[in-house]
């Protein structure tokens, strides 16, 4: 059999539907306490679907970025509690698992235009941030390896930039809040801080402001109108002859030879 034919063999997984190839091994997992045999190497999410579960809650992007599928599990003979995303964690033998698709957390509404860039505003909206006892359970529970305690500490100290940077990978699954001894919604606090940082602390893009003015003044209206009625031949010519900005040119420095359409 040639290599090409081999890849088109019928016994293959299609889409996300898993199969148990001939000779492959299964392992036992306990979904909410009940034993199922599933193929090894599957993710928790695909293993649950393989077992016959159909998700309404607890599945989202299936790619580790939306925070819909946080899962808590233990392993036989191990006192520790583990956290992971069901779509990103591979099953292990004798894993005892349950999903936590929703966890209540209070969020305070605010007006970004009025809030300003000072940390005081954050402290006023979320005074419970000072209930943190630095137990670090939040960080241990984070499936994205965000140092939650570090950003909450930065918020307390008023270092908004640091808090924004450290919390950037947060997917807002809520596991930090589920384990917090101070009972605070860390992920909402992180979101607030990042928006304040983006709005008030990060410098604004001046070249963008200029471009917005140019667009609003109608500078490009005629050019775009001409393009919408242009023949394919003429468009093809423009497309093939367009200059390409060099890869390593520093931003804002290179200019094309033809500047009539800028």
């Amino acid at each position, binding site marked *: 059999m040639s*290599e*090409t034919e081999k*890849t088109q063999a019928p016994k293959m*997984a*299609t*889409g*996300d*539907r898993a199969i148990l190839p001939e000779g492959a091994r299964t392992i036992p997992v306990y979904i909410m306490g009940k034993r199922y045999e599933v193929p090894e*190497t599957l993710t928790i999410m*695909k293993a649950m679907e393989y*077992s016959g579960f159909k998700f*309404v*809650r607890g599945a989202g*992007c*299936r*790619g*580790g*970025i*939306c925070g*819909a599928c946080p899962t808590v599990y233990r392993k036989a003979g191990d006192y520790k509690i583990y956290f992971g995303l069901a779509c*990103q*964690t591979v099953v292990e033998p004798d894993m005892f698992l349950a999903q936590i698709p929703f966890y209540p957390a209070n969020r305070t509404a*605010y*007006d*970004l235009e009025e809030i300003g860039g000072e940390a005081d505003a954050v402290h006023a909206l979320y005074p419970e941030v000072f209930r943190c006892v630095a137990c670090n359970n939040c960080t241990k529970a984070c499936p994205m390896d965000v140092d939650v305690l570090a950003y909450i500490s930065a918020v307390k100290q008023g270092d908004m930039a640091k808090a924004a940077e450290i919390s*950037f990978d947060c*997917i807002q699954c809520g596991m930090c809040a589920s384990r917090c001894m101070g009972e605070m919604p860390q992920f909402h606090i992180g*979101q*607030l801080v*990042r*928006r*304040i*940082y*983006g*709005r008030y602390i*990060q*410098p*604004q*893009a*001046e*070249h*963008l*402001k200029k*471009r*917005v003015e140019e*667009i609003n003044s109608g500078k*490009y209206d005629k*050019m775009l109108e001409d*393009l*919408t009625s242009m023949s394919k031949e003429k*468009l*093809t010519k423009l*497309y093939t002859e*367009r200059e*390409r900005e060099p890869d*390593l040119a520093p*931003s*804002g420095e290179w200019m094309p030879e033809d500047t009539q*359409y*800028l």
Partner: protein
Amino acid sequence: MAYTPEMKELIKKVEATRPDRVAMAKNNEHYPALTLKEREEVLNKYHPDYQEDGKRKVKVGPNKGDVFQEEVAELLESQSIIKEDEADLSEPDYETDVLVIGGGGAGTSAALLASDGGADVIMATKLRHGDSNTIMAEGGIQAASQECDSPFYHYIDTIGGGHFTNQPDLVSTLAHDAPLSIAWLERLGMMFNKLEDGRMVVRHFGGSSRKRLHSAGDMTGAEIMRVVRDEARNRSDKITILEFCPAAELILDEDGKCAGAILYNLETQEFYVVKAKAVILATGGFGRLHIKGFACTNHYGATMDGVVMAYRVGVGNKYLYSTQYHPTGVVYPEQNVGLLITEKVRGLGAHVLNIDGEQFCFPLEPRDVESAELICEAMEKGKGVMTPTGRMGLWLDSPMIDEIHGEGTVKKELPAKFIQFARHGIDISKEPMLVYPTLHYQNGGVNINSDAETVVPGLYAAGEVMGGVHGENRLMGNSLQDIITFGRRAGAKAAEYIKGVDLKKPTLDHVAKFEKELTDAGIENPKTAPIILPDYSTDEVSAKRWTKVPIGGE
């Protein structure tokens, strides 16, 4: 799982050719790109969209006679999930000015702009607010913000990348509004990658003439989604969010204006009638149909619902036969299969290599061309790498990024990808990734004009559900831009439109009429749609579900 010893042996071939390739990249030298004619040849031969099998004509509706992939055709020829004689429209459960269906980037932008315009908004989402393809988009968002760039070149790149099939007024709108969208997001507090003086960091992407890709780490879509969702939550007085309530059918009034929708509560199985003066469809794409069995990068709810509902009220679509295969989906390790590796990796200089560690294509061709070249290299030339689970892949040489731009670049520029692989024992700053084309994006969709209006008064569409702006092929960074551009336009326009609207008696007659068309066309046992969620039960489990009616009775 980390690479097996056999795979590690193969990686040595990649490492052997790397020094020469890095030197080449530093001199701004590239593997030659294909000419337009060569592109056409490789597409026709190897791209799944261009091959003829698995396609057929649909027999009913606005696109009657047009050819679609089988998986799409059977949903266009589907029946309603609602028993019409039991549906009572006379007493709506909710009343609002604007109903937004879908809670991704387009829907949320639309909701924000509609509320800016003074409208009361209900947003109905299938899963949670934010569960969408937006949140998964990694690489960036296009806008001609630089001095060397302009909307003119954004237009040219986009329509050239789309093989000149794009709907011109939509491309013009996209290029025009793009910088406005970025400024809007900046003002909402989005954390863009910036230089110290505030200048946006911008990059090249496949098919670009200028660096136009703005980003936020390698989770640009997630950052956009978090920011607009947070803003919507701040406006709970104007925007009501109904989660786990996908739409099942659109409602028209007797004059044929859109008058709301029927929602389905996934948890209680009730239907809700929403009376609305305007409806914005922002339901996303169809990745979860797994056309031709390909793995996909889409979120769980991407099942073509909006196109199906629009079809029944007489709104046709274009380019729906065109499916974007992202050239670089993960094929190893198994738990990452189907995940997308952003084009930014190639934008940063990583080469695509065969089993011998050799380059065989320009790494930044438009996506469809790049996909076809990978399929050709693996299938025709037999130079792919086989994984232990029988999947085929080609190397994406990420370690050379650090060698070109300095150590730590991979970790800094691709933090989420770095974590996703590190979790499975692979350090992508030291070992290459194994990739293969993956189903990624619905290029086509429902017909709209530059104000996001459909032919049905009061019905708008924005985001992946609509078609035309990308033609038959979308460039990277244009989808994040189109959801914001057309989401904002749809919201603003709808808020204006509702001011003069007087709704007449609501009706589902269009559904009855459509189903009669199905019968007249001889379509027996049509599928029931929207399908709302895919089913990943194994054949073995499905075969053992013997119930006649759900447990607890009908």
